[in-house]
């Protein structure tokens, strides 16, 4: 299976990832890409403690993730790569060509963001960044848990708060 899931989720490691996706999909490694987390021993330990022993967690900056991506793709285990925001994923896509699909798992409410789905709130800048990703050939969908119906980008942007 290798690394075939690229997820934007402002909660990073949390229940939906570790249990919701982790158990039914047999996730065996997670790659957390965040330039701040990778430089903080405490933050890395915080996330490491949330991951069950059967799942390995790797921490990367955008730059190191781009360098390691081929080896992650060659890993026979099932993996998922996570960023906490659209901009980090956009930078990774630019630095590591070949990422063809990105899933929005959760971008929650903040000032300036409008609800598009129950778990997706976007600012105008967020929407422009997602459109730019799509224009570059990346398929963008939203799906919080495996049992949910994937929502295409056009439907996300047209959404007014539907599930």
């Amino acid at each position, binding site marked *: 299976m290798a690394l075939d899931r690229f997820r934007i989720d*402002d909660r*990073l490691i949390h*229940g939906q*990832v570790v249990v919701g996706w982790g158990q039914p999909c047999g996730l065996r490694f997670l790659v957390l890409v965040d330039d701040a987390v990778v430089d903080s021993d405490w933050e890395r330990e*915080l996330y490491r403690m*949330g991951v069950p022993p059967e799942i390995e967690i790797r921490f990367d900056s955008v730059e190191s993730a781009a360098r390691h991506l081929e080896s992650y793709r060659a890993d026979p285990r099932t993996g998922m790569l996570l960023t906490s925001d659209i901009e980090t994923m956009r930078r990774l896509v630019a630095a590591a060509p070949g990422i063809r699909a990105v899933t929005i798992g959760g971008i*929650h*409410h903040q000032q300036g963001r409008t609800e598009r789905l*129950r778990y997706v709130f976007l600012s105008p800048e967020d929407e422009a960044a997602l459109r730019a990703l799509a224009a570059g050939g990346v398929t963008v969908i939203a799906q919080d848990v495996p049992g949910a119906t994937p929502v295409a980008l056009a439907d996300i942007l047209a959404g007014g708060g539907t599930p």
Partner: protein
Amino acid sequence: MTPNSARALVMGHGEFAAGMISAVEQIAGRGDAFVTLGNSGLSPGGIESRLREALAASGARVIFTDLPAGSCTMAARRIAKAEGDITVVTGATLPTLLAFALGADAREAAERGREALLVVEGGGGT
């Protein structure tokens, strides 16, 4: 729940906290030992803010959460690190919360929850 009498916060996914504490109230009549919080629709910063506000309003220094990997636990641990005198118990169950409601401290309550886990197989005999 009455914030001023609360000794702890309970936060989890969906209606976990409200459901658990409704059971505590039904069994022991001590639901007022807790303030219940949910994480639905909240960003990590929003979860942390909700916890901080409830801590300030209640004076509680113990936070129970549902899942070790959960966003509530992550937020509670960040607060515990910053504040220094907060205790976080994750993986909280009904026996855990009942024990706490009836006077156990956080560590004792966690142990009661651990002890209450049983697997009864087959005919249920010993």
